[in-house]
């Protein structure tokens, strides 16, 4: 059951975030455009260095300068362009109206502060609660995310919790101010699969209750299939395909998406089923090939692909992809 509405919460337009390194200009995000509605969950999918994490950090203006700069585009959040906001305005937004949870809870939680202190910090800062009120709310939030014996454990330090529990604490912190948008950056990569299932169920349940829009960044195509309404597939800093989940898995229209879905081993596939292999290596963002960044690995590459960069075009209801190939010529696996 989806809680998605038609009201846009976030609109990213032609975002470009570059890093200036010894190797030269690295175009981590190079013209990314997508939007997310209130109550919707969107999966941002791609392999390493596709730009998904950098795009999330760009939304929150957390890109370190040097060496990174957001060189262009717009990030419209509830009507305001965040790229035009001051740092003071951003501080009011982070942790409050847009929240983020990260891959490694052990490095994201402060090891020398109690859980109580960390969760209540946002409450005191953004919701102007006093100490008593914030403590009560902290315990309520910890119970909500399933921390057993919350009253006593609120006074513990992060190292006294398991990885799964630490991730739940991060979820509690992120949702404490009832944000309009939650960004989860690889929230389950460093936890076991049974804990992953628990965390994602909590996130789905909370989303249903609070109507928060959620962006899940991951390389795990299974997680995306189960937990998001719409999928954005990224490659070398750009969006190559976007569609509602059922549509993307059932009828992918970009060669990269087709290749990716066919290369993932599935629990329900036949044993020793041959996996389709995408030949070649992931792109070097400091030395991108000309034209479409995927063309060196693409079975369907044509001369045009080496010269020009394809733009997103509509190929179905809410289904867009960036490719010059005639859709009818794409062979499904």
């Amino acid at each position: 059951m989806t809680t998605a509405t038609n009201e846009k919460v976030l609109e990213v337009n032609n975002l470009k975030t570059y890093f200036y390194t010894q190797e030269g200009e690295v175009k981590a995000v190079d013209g990314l455009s997508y939007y997310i509605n209130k109550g919707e969950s969107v999966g941002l999918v791609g392999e390493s260095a596709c730009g998904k994490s950098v795009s999330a950090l760009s939304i929150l203006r957390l890109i370190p300068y040097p060496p990174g700069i957001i060189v262009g585009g717009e990030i419209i959040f509830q009507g305001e362009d965040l790229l035009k906001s001051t740092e003071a305005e951003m501080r009011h937004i982070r942790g409050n109206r847009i929240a983020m949870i990260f891959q490694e809870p052990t490095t994201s939680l402060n090891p020398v502060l109690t859980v109580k202190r960390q969760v209540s910090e946002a409450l005191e800062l953004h919701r102007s609660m006093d100490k008593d009120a914030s403590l009560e709310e902290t315990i309520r939030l910890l119970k909500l995310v399933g921390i057993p014996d919350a009253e006593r454990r609120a006074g513990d330090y992060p190292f006294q919790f398991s990885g799964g529990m630490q991730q739940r604490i991060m979820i509690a912190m992120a949702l404490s101010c009832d944000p309009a948008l939650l960004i989860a950056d690889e929230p389950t990569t460093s936890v076991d699969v049974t804990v992953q299932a628990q965390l994602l169920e909590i996130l789905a349940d909370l989303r249903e209750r609070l109507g928060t829009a959620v962006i899940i960044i991951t390389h795990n195509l299974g997680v995306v299939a189960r937990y998001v309404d719409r999928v954005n597939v990224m490659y070398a800093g750009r969006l190559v395909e976007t569609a509602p989940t059922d549509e993307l898995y059932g009828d992918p229209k970009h060669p990269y998406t087709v290749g990716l879905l066919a290369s993932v081993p599935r629990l329900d596939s036949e044993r020793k089923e041959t996996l389709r292999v995408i030949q070649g290596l992931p792109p070097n963002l400091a030395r991108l090939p000309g034209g479409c960044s995927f063309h060196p690995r693409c079975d369907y590459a044509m001369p045009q692909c080496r010269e020009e960069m394809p733009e997103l075009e509509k190929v179905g209801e809410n289904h867009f992809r960036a490719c010059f190939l005639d859709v009818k010529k794409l062979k499904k696996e």
Partner: protein
Amino acid sequence: MKNDHLIEVDNLIMWFPVTAGVLQKRVADVKAVDGISFFIKSGETLGLVGESGCGKTTTGRCILQLYEGMKGSILFEGIDLTQLKREQMRRMRRNMQLIFQDPYASLDPRMTAGDIIGEPLKVHNLAKGKEYKDQVAELFRMVELEPYMADRYPHEFSGGQRQRIGIARALAVRPKFIVCDEPVSALDVSIQAQIITLLERLRGELNLTYLFIAHDLSVVRNISDRVAVMYLGKLAEVTSSDELYRNPLHPYTIALLSAVPIPDPVIDRTRERILLTGDVPSPMFPPSGCNFHPRCHMAIEQCSVEQPELRLVGEEHWVACHRV
């Protein structure tokens, strides 16, 4: 010992002592592997799955005799490795190799790829001069790399290529058996498929036997003939890959399978989901009786008191559970 069992593990126990205090007094043990028995058939891929802390990596290393202080026996082609003297074991190592998880940490950054791959040939005195160079070149080609890359250093290769170097190194001594310890976990999805396909091809061509250790059930399902599921140092279930997926019997296996999403939303929605409560206990303090009972939705009184034995319940299907 049956003829087609390359390896037989009997009641393997590996506890790591935990010390505390100035005098390094032993205060507890991490019961990483707590009494497991299984066999690996010649030419098969046995998948060993479980979540972190279940003891699967320790099991792989114990088979290769990489730890001191293990109990139980490991038979390789009928020979008990635990009874061998150092020099005998050293020669035995030609038959068994290891591929590591981390393609960045498992290669010496100060050796060239050619030296890394050729080192086992030197250590075991297998080739010299031109023959050495030829064999190293052949190993490069076997893993789909070009021999001219031999002079490059690890940092000049991608993660997937470094894993190929690790595989070539393992193949250098022409082993019969390879422990693959999470060989694709650190790689991108599209590269994982390349490495899995390579490993499968090599197994057929070189008549290898694999112990494939992983936490990703989808990968294990694809590459393994049979699968063993571990939980907190013990075996929960062992059966063929097909049977494990179609007819899992142990409550932990059932929960584990249901937690793995299938990248197909239409099919995934039809599956039943079992959510486990709580976290995996510490292997220092495993629960009494069946170590899974506190999280088990089928537990009865007997489960908290008596440890279930791994017993045969179907054709080549073993389960350790009182309720089955």
